[in-house]
């Protein structure tokens, strides 16, 4: 294990198991609210978010505060970046101010690959374009592990299908990589314009219908559909039609015998990927995912920064 968490592959399977176990402990330690464990009290963590974020940023901030680290929020819109300073130069400068870690979200894929050779502080990927979002994948795995009695053997027997715009999803890519590491069978499904040309690079397969997905899956992970993105309407016509063909509702899953679990990295579009009845039903792990994010991210920070 190195100092960075840019990609799932930066941790071994054993590292990840350790992180999940630690997250479980932290979740119990946090039973009285607003605990400060002081484990990282001498650490400075800089937040640089070049794309809007609610869940991920708040969740990392809360994780840092649980461990007692000092956090700095770099205001990306008001910085020298607008004066022509490159992002990499900015980070080198911030490091000399005593940064121990950078938690970064960027639009461009490939940013971390350049940056990692120039920075000594820890780099934590909080979302990189359409490529990677490893902490989200870890918290989703944690949520499943918790749901299946903290038993990795049970996870191994699961069949998980991700439904949505796989092509543009960093969450999907990180999840597929992580599930593959844990030998969990995955499938993808969605409009043909949203799928991967070569799914085998992620060790996954394309399903042919929603019915098939519902019949074979133990867990279904839905992704947010974003028709406001540029060119989106050249890929799919409308949210209403997405909901009709690919959206899930209690009605659509009522004929499934087994106890299927529904996940969504958020924020979900009510009535598009999922109807609210289902999102708030017993099948849904959506709100557990949000809550678990804090402890998994705290465990990640601790693992990277605690000497």
């Amino acid at each position, binding site marked *: 294990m190195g100092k960075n968490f840019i990609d799932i592959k930066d941790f071994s399977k054993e590292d990840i198991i350790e992180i999940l176990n630690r997250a479980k402990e932290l979740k119990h330690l946090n039973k009285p609210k607003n605990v400060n464990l002081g484990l990282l009290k001498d650490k400075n963590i800089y937040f640089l978010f070049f794309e809007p974020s609610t869940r991920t940023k708040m969740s990392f901030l809360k994780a840092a505060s649980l461990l007692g680290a000092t956090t700095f929020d770099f205001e990306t819109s008001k910085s020298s970046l607008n004066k022509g300073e490159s992002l990499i130069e900015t980070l080198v400068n911030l490091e000399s101010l005593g940064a121990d870690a950078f938690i970064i979200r960027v639009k461009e894929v490939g940013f971390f690959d350049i940056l990692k050779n120039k920075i000594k502080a820890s780099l934590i990927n909080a979302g990189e374009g359409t490529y990677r979002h490893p902490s989200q994948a870890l918290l989703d795995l944690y949520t499943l592990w918790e749901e299946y009695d903290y038993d990795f053997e049970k996870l191994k027997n699961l069949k998980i299908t991700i439904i949505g715009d796989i092509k543009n999803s960093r969450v999907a890519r990180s999840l597929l990589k992580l599930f593959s590491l844990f030998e969990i069978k995955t499938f993808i499904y969605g*409009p*043909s*314009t949203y799928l991967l040309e070569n799914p085998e690079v992620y060790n996954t397969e394309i399903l042919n219908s929603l019915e098939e997905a519902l019949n074979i899956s133990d867990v279904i992970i839905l992704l947010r559909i974003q028709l406001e993105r540029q*060119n989106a*309407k*050249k*890929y*799919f*016509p*409308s949210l*209403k*039609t997405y909901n*009709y*063909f690919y959206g899930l509702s209690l009605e659509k899953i009522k004929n499934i015998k087994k106890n299927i679990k529904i996940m969504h990295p958020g924020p979900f579009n009510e009535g598009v990927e999922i109807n609210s009845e289902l999102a708030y039903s017993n099948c849904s792990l959506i709100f557990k995912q949000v809550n678990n994010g804090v402890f998994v991210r705290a465990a990640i920070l601790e693992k990277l920064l605690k000497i």
Partner: protein
Amino acid sequence: MSILLKNAKIIDPLQNLKGDKLSDILIENGKIIKIDKNISSFEASRVIDLEANYLSPGFIDIHVHFRDPGFTYKEDLETGSLAAISGGFTSVVCMPNTNPPLDDELALFYINEKRKNLPCLIYVATTITRSRKGEALSDFIYLKEKYKDLIVGISDDGNDVSDTLLLYNAMKLAKEYNLVVFSHCEDKYLFEDGHLNEGKASSFYGIKGILNECESIGAYRNIILALRTKARLHLQHVSTKETVKLLKVFKKENISAEATPHHFTLSEEQLLKDLDPNLKMNPPLRSKDDVKAIKKALSENIIDVIATDHAPHSEKEKNISFEKAPFGIIGLQTAFSLSLKLVEEGYLSLEKLIEKLSTKPSQIIGKPFIGNLKPGSLANITVFNTDETWVYTREVNKSKSFNSPFLGKTLKGKILKTFYKGELVYES
């Protein structure tokens, strides 16, 4: 209700019936029951003697413009249907360039209701892009789900989809949802504002021409996208030898093509004699070499289907300068006679002709219960004579419009009777 049609030379390519001997055909409740040598007249409540004329499955035109809703001064569903059955056609596919276009739910609802009472089977292609504007995907997968029987494919006919990304994704979804992509191949920049063939006609009149490559560049792009996506691609109104060459090289099972009677009957030479706005269509009448290439492509099955691109325009619209006149001519009533010339000239057998007018079109739109005379199929039937001549007068013309260069001409090969779901809907 049962009808017995006696003494017909029956042609059905799907059953290998070549029309070389006389047989009878029994129809009951709108469906074919059987074909046999001597079916007893007692088996039917009505008997019609066809006097040794030819009988084939009803023709299917997968490219018409019925202008309804929106342009009903040119044509409407009733007059279009009458023109169809008068020409031996019992099924048509209407293109969506109406007003509103056929991606409008109300327009589809209207056609779906109206078609129940028409004397021929109406199918439609909905749009590829919203309102045919070429900017965003139309909601064709939802519309197809809502109007499963009505919609057979998608098309922006009149325009190609210039945005290749948009077309590529449309083809992927068309494949996923089993829709035919009817493709008007055209590079819009090369098209500029041409009016006739770039060649003799444009050189002579000084009117802006339309290059052959305008079609073939579009065709190439659309074909290779279909090879990638495996979508069912149907090239409309192929008019150039270059497109034929492309088809020869690249055609796979998921690709088909049509030619119109005017493109294999007339060339731009006709325009040199007469700058008639009724000789203005898009694609334009091409050179003699192109005409020959199209005929050959039909005989070699590189072009699968004959379709009319029946495009009515009012006399007011057409009786103006060639440059101002809109593109398109009507063709439903002349299609059979013009196509029969290919048989006379030895390009096609009569059986092959029926295949291109009926069997193949039904396969392209995926409707196995039409385009053949198998037991259980719809009793859509065309009865014709290949020797009789007739004059295409204004009185004979059933379309609301008269924009045909063949009006007033004597043509050989006559449609005698048309049956739709077992009912005699047309008789000459």
